[in-house]
Structure formats: C-alpha cells, structure tokens
C-alpha cells in the first residue's frame, strides 16, 4: 500500500513538473509580439467589467456590451495598431493568468503597475492617475473621515487589487475583507457587513452618483505613483507591443483624453444604465444566462455519462497487465478528481490546458465539468453494475451472448434503472454547479446576474431572480427525470 502511495505521488510530481516546464517555455517566446497581433488582425483585451466607470456592462439598443474608459483606451490602442479590438470579460483575479497563458493579448482593468505585478507582466506607461476613495453609507457620514477612522471596523476591497493590499498594510486595528466583485462589496456595505469600501476615485464617484444612500470620503492612503496609476498590461517580453501601445498611451496623456472624452462618455452610459433598473428590463441577460447554463449542463451530462461508463468499465477490468494498468489509471483518475475542487479543475483546464491548445472559455468549462462529472458518474455506474444479480450475466452468457453484448443489452439497462435516482441527482447538481464556470467568464446565470448587479447597482434583486430561475430549471429537470423513472418501473 505504501509503495503504491509513493508511486502515485511520484507520478503526480512528474505531471506538475511537466506543466511548469511547459509554462516556462511558453513565456520565453521570441519578440514577434507586434507582428503576431497585426497578422491576427485582432487585439484581445481582458477586463473585469464590474468597475464603473473604468469598465462595466451597459445595455445599448437592447444589447449588453462592455463599455467604460478602459475600453476607450483599448480601442485607441487597437486603432493605432490598425487591428480590431475584442473585449473578453473575466474575474479580476484571473486577468493576469489569462494574459500569461495567452488567453488575452492585453489587460486593461484599472490595473496598477505595482512592482509585484511587473515581475510577471510588462506594463505600458500609465494612462490615468487616480487615487483612492472610501465609499461609506451616507448615514455614517461624519463618523468616518478617512482610512484611520475604521479602527475595530471592517473595510472591504476587491481581492487581488492594490486597494486590498494597501488597506491591509496601511491600517491598524481594521479588518480588511476581500471580495471578488465590487458589486458584492457595495451590497455588503449596504447590509452593514462592512463599513467602508476602498476603491479608485472615479469608481467611487460613479457609485455615489448612482446611489443616493452612499457617500465617498478621501482615503488618505500614503501612495506611490505606481499604486494610484492605471496601466495597460502585456505579456512579459513583448517589448515591441508595449512600445507601440506606449505611443497611444502617451497621446492619451498629452491630450488628456481620459478626463476630456473617455470619462464623460462612460458617465453617459452609466446614466442610461440606471434609467431602468427593473429586472424585467434585463430579461435578455437572464435568458442568455439560462441558455448557457443549460448548454453547459446538458453537454457535461452527456460527455460525463460516456466518460463515466468507460471509467467504470476500466475500474472493473480484471486480469492481465494491460487491464490491471487500466484499472489503476481509472481508479487514480476518479480519486484525484473527487479529491480536488471543481473550481480548481475549471481553472486548470482553461488556463493550464490553454498552454497547449487555446480553448474558448465555454469549451473549457464543458470539458472541465464533464471530466469532473465523469468521475462521479463512474462510481454510480460501478455501483449500479454491481447491483445487478450475477445470474443475469450468466443467463445472457449461457445464451451465447458475448460479454460486450451482455453488458449492453442486459446489465447496463438494469444498472441504469437502479442508479437513475443518483444520476438524476447528479444532473440537478450539475445545473447548479455549472455556475463555477462564471470565474472564467462564461456568461451563464451567475455571471449574468453579476453583470446585472453591477449595471443596476442593485445587489439583491438579481440574486433573487436567478434563485427562482435555478429553481425552475432544477424542478423541471427533476419532474422529467421522475417521469422516466416511472416508465422504467416494471416490478
């Protein structure tokens, strides 16, 4: 047993080392970065669109799109390069990973060019010099003056952001709470879970302008220029690309385009955005969410089931070196998948496999969830096959049926009937668990609700809506499954 364990870990180590090596080689590409973009004709910009006025979703002529001053900056850079800008949205935490793994060509997301980040990516000159504010509830105005007023209280900041790190460093006696999205932070603020939210000044102004219950106070953080400025990030080593972008950025600075043109334009979107914050107004966004949630679930159930059948058969293979190896592999796979979080698997498939083949987020999500589901389904099926009386196999074999035909026509149909409730459970779980792929930017229900939340500045209503939508989906699914379960009852 011990020997097996050692072997297993050795294997794991080899796998991890292999991937690390791969990552390094991918990074050490020669600098044909600019020509590559020009050849491709598109410049893919990664951003986390929940940070108005930097970037956010707006409904323009019934279509949701990502707008904001960062998008304007991106457009300028792309235009100067003579290519088309493609905007890809994902969570702030994932942005730099996406850049390093080539999922996006550049990141513009109000990102500060801190020394730590400089180690991993290349930054342009800064295109905007901001500062921090702290957003508080208007009712608390007077209690809090700046960052030092929060002793014994809690300040919130976006995880992975400079504000988060600085809040931790520059306050004492204050708890700093990190959340992924700013809309969640505002919601936490309004429900008095936290007392302040540290964010960039323009964002703070946007929130305050759109929500009468909020107020902004100066942060008085002691900040270096790199902490308060925003830059465009490119992959490390792509000097040609950075130099070209710097020309655009310098122009933006010289002509003061951000303050003169970009911010006012973004402000207009913000206003149109908040004109109608009714949930019905956003039915299209929710519909898209349902569509993607269903696509992911149905595809994953389908592929997961096929994988599950194969894995369960491999796990039951007996005799011979080849079959034993197969059994070991399948067992290791099932144990490994069940022993790691699905969220990590999703990120690994999207970013990790992305080094070898560039898969779109949706495909990555479906692959990751299918791989995950397959491991669980395999165990159900194995249990189901074992639950079929051995006499059934003997009867079929005595009639001259091959082991394959026996399995297909006699054992599996009965196994399936026995495990149908468990499989149904797995299906319903998948409808809910598909939400995990929102972290890589697939526009399923959770992702869409986050967009609606940052669009409307309403924290709870979109959550309530998707809760009901999820329930409608799962309830319908369980009714359908029950119908088939009844049809399979013969005794």
């Amino acid at each position, binding site marked *: 047993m011990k020997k097996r364990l050692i072997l297993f870990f050795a294997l794991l180590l080899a796998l991890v080392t292999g991937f690390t090596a791969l990552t390094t080689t991918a990074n050490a590409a020669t600098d044909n970065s600019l020509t590559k973009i020009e050849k491709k004709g598109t410049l893919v910009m990664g951003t986390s669109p929940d940070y108005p006025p930097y970037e956010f979703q707006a409904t323009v002529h019934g279509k949701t799109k990502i707008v904001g001053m960062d998008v304007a900056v991106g457009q300028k850079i792309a235009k100067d390069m003579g290519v088309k800008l493609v905007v890809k949205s994902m969570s702030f935490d994932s942005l730099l990973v996406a850049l390093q793994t080539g999922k996006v060509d550049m990141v513009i997301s109000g990102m500060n060019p801190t020394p730590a980040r400089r180690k991993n990516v290349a930054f342009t000159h800064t295109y905007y010099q901001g500062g921090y504010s702290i957003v508080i509830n208007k009712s608390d105005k007077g209690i809090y003056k700046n960052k030092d007023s929060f002793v014994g209280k809690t300040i919130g900041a976006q995880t992975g952001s400079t504000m988060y790190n600085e809040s931790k460093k520059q306050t004492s006696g204050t708890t700093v709470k990190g959340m992924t999205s700013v809309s969640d932070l505002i919601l936490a603020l309004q429900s008095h879970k936290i007392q302040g939210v540290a964010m960039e000044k323009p964002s703070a102004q946007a929130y305050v302008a759109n929500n009468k219950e909020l107020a902004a106070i100066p942060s008085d953080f002691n900040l270096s220029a790199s902490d308060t400025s925003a830059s465009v990030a490119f992959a490390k080593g792509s000097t040609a690309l950075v130099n070209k972008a710097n020309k655009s950025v310098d122009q933006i600075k010289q002509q003061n385009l951000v303050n003169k043109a970009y911010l006012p334009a973004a402000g207009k979107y913000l206003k149109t955005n908040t004109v109608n914050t009714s949930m019905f107004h956003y039915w299209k966004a929710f519909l898209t969410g349902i569509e993607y949630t269903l696509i992911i679930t149905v595809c994953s159930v389908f592929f997961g089931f096929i994988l599950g059948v194969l894995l369960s058969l491999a796990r039951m293979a007996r005799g011979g070196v080849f079959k034993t190896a197969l059994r070991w592999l399948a067992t290791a796979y099932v144990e490994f998948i069940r022993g790691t979080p699905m969220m990590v698997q999703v990120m690994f498939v999207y970013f990790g496999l992305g080094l070898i083949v560039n898969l779109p987020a949706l495909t990555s999500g479906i692959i990751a969830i299918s791989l995950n589901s397959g491991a669980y389904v395999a165990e159900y099926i194995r249990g189901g096959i074992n639950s079929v009386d051995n006499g059934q196999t003997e*009867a079929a074999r005595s*009639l*001259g049926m091959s082991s394959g*035909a026996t399995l297909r026509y006699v054992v599996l149909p009965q196994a399936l009937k026995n495990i149908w409730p468990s499989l149904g459970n797995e299906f319903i779980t998948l409808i809910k668990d598909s939400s995990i792929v929102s972290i890589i930017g697939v526009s399923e229900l959770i992702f869409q609700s986050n967009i609606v939340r940052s669009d409307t500045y309403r924290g709870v209503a979109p959550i309530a809506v998707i809760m009901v939508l999820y329930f409608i989906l799962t309830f319908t699914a369980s009714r359908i499954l029950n119908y088939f379960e009844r049809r399979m009852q013969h005794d």
Partner: protein
Amino acid sequence: MTKPIIEVKDLAKNFGKNQVLKDITEQVTPGQVIVVIGPSGSGKSTFLRCLNLLETPTSGEVDFAGENLTTLDTKRVNELREQMGMVFQSFNLFPNMTVLENIKLAPMKVKHVDDATATKRAHELLKQVNLDDHADAFPASLSGGQAQRVAIARSLAMDPKVMLFDEPTSALDPEMVGEVLSVMQQLAEQGMTMVVVTHEMGFAKSVADRVWFMADGYIQENSTPDDFFSNPQTERAQDFLSKILM
C-alpha cells in the same frame, strides 16, 4: 455407437483450496437424457456449469461436438454456448423486458434474426410451454412455474443441441413443479439431449436414460434409473437413497 456430443475427461475444479470436482470422465450421446443426482454440496451444479464454461475447469477437458472448450478463444466459446441452453434454479429472466422480449433478445442480438421471424418463433415457443397469453407480461408478474417455463422457452429460442438444467424446480412452490417437469418431459420425448441436475427422483425414474450419482466430487455411479434405484452399487448411493423418501 454414436459419437458423444459432450465428453468430459479428467475434469477437476477447485475453488481456492476447496476441491469441488476431483476427477470426472463421462460422456453424453445425442438424444440422451442424463439426470445428475446426489447430496447437496457434492458439486452437481459446479459440474453442470463447467459443461458450458460458466465455471472454468481447473484441469481436464470438456469437449462439445468434438471441440475442447477449455482451449478455445472466447469468441468460439460464445458460439458453442448458443448450442447449449441452460435453465437456472432462479430463472434469471431479464426483469426489464417482457416475456416476448426475453425470448427474442438472444436470437436477434447474437444470431441477428429479424424482428418478425424472432417474434413468430417466440410465440411458437410460448405455445409449446403453454404461456402464449403471457407474451407481453413482465417477469415480475409471473408465478415461479410460469417464469421457469419462459426461461426454458428462452433457451430453446437459440435452437440448442443440448439443454442443461440446474435444479430447475428447486425454487418452486410444490404445486408448480409439475408444470415445469411436464414441459421438460415433453422436450425429452422430442429427442432433446438433456443434462438435468435435480432432486426430483420421480422425474429421474421416468424420463432419464442414465442416472449419474455424484458425491464427494466424483461421479460414483453411472447406471440406468432402474438399476440405480433398485440396486445401487456403492455404499454412498445406498446411504443417499435410504435417506430420501421414495
């Protein structure tokens, strides 16, 4: 003398350290009805299951129609199994299929008979076992006797040369034993080669051509029913017969 259809040579079977079959050499000629009797745990069922390789013999040979099953590949064994129907103590009908589907499955999937032909043949067989009115029933709704008759029809659907019966009436209520035995008797009268493991001494007496008495992993006696029941040679057989009510 006609060539034997089943020939067993020096057959032995161990389960771990437990020697169930020790050294068996016998043969069955076409048309013969063999009844294997003996005390419980004497290896009768194991012996029967070795004949169609549901159990793999530890050593020795099982020849079917001149081919040594123990040396053949899986594909050929499957082909030969078609020709050896088997009826089990616990029927082993497929519970998720109707009676008709139970019978049609193997002919359609193994012999690739078309649906119409298979259905027609299934109805004929159901008439033969007096169950044609139950064609669309599911096994769960059948009595034990009915289920076993369906199981017999299912085996016959593959047109086997030999039928193996593994205690076909042991799981039945007493009043249902008769209907199954009469179907078996009918089959014997039609000239089917049969090897029957049973405790039905009456059946052995009236239908069997030979009685094989099995005990302690050996076939102790191979004689006609008359000889066996009136004049058992071995002490083991005398002891066995003295213990059962005749």
